[in-house]
């Protein structure tokens, strides 16, 4: 495996920015570039490992999942579309799906974008299309303006899959506070729906 030329023995894990990640995935897709893949691996493998360990994998299963996810990145780099998502979000969705397969032994139902029976965006009337764009922007603003303590209970509840009791114990908050913050967070997001809710 080729090494990056500017390597440091301690390999300070400086984070790669979004543009750099796009470029690396592009190089893997186009040129089957192993050096670019190694850089992606160093960036994402520890995150995938932490993610799987947090969600209950043992170390060897978590390492297998790292390998599965990164192999998928290698094989499907050509299908990554920077207009749809960041590289981080794309890798997250692969990790999410693989760990549902492996840790829960469940399939994940998903719509098939190639399915002719799927209602395309273009079926929306011009008014509906404008509404779609607007509600999507409102949601992103709502996500961006979540209070830090509300975002944290959402993260623990949905991303780390902690129960309300586990969140209370980990954060030393009263259970009632956990529930209130979660309710406030969801209420904040729901307001982005405006009068459509």
């Amino acid at each position, binding site marked *: 495996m080729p090494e990056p030329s500017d390597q440091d023995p301690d390999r300070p894990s400086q984070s790669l920015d979004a543009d750099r990640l796009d470029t690396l995935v592009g190089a893997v897709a186009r040129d089957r570039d192993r050096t670019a893949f190694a850089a992606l691996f160093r960036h994402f493998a520890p995150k995938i490992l932490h993610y799987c360990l947090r969600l209950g994998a043992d170390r060897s299963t978590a390492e297998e999942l790292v390998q599965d996810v990164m192999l998928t990145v290698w094989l499907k780099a050509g299908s990554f579309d920077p207009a749809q*998502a960041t590289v981080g979000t794309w890798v997250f969705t692969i990790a999410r799906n693989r760990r549902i397969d492996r840790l829960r032994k469940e399939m994940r139902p998903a719509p098939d974008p190639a399915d002719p029976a799927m209602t395309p965006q273009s079926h929306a009337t011009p008014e509906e299309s404008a509404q779609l764009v607007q509600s999507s922007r409102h949601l992103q603003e709502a996500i961006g303006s979540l209070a830090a303590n509300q975002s944290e209970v959402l993260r623990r509840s949905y991303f780390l899959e902690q129960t309300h009791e586990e969140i209370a114990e980990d954060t030393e908050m009263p259970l009632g506070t956990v529930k209130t913050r979660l309710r406030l967070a969801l209420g904040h997001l729901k307001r982005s729906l405006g009068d459509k809710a």
Partner: protein
Amino acid sequence: MTLPLHHPEDQLLIGYASGQERAGKSLLVATHLAYCPDCRRRVASFEALCGSWFEELPCNDHDGLDALLDRMDGLLAAGGAPAEAKPSRPLAAGSLGGRPVPEPLRSWLPEAIDTPTDDGSWREISKGVWLSGWERTLSGTTICLLRMASGAPVPAHRHTADELLLVLQGAFSDEYGSYALGDVAQYVADTDHHAQGASEEDCICLFLLDGELIFLDEEGNPA
């Protein structure tokens, strides 16, 4: 065609985006997404939120991972195709009211679900209301189809956990509104609600229930 007006609650969409939601409700959410470009965008935003949390995870722990990278060398060289992407089921294999049911549900339903109600594939629970003989249990959630003739009310029932409906054909109404193709109705435990068919053709819904469903007699006792 019109787009859905009634959507799953954000809890379900975030849970679906993060992977926290289990397979049963994910099947209903994913099928609603096939009908609803609005919720597809909403889920994409929630996936981006999860992606940002994923990016915040620690990036240390290189011990062992370098060795793993070396071990992947052979795999990369082999470059095999990922074993996934099972083919979509043919459109003709599942349609209701002459319209194909979208994936992922189409692959789950039996073929020719849109059969007459007197051939045994539907069980009548009260006049004009049927449950399908087809039933699945996924991660603790019972899934079947509910069919309501025009004007036929679903009999009073009690459920101790969430009930979810997704309209696949026709329309129904309850005290909260009117639901047509692709719409989702969500009822929390122990709420009173009175759905009844509200379209010329029978209304057919994907019906999800956590836990037990008990139909009640006229006095409100379990029938």
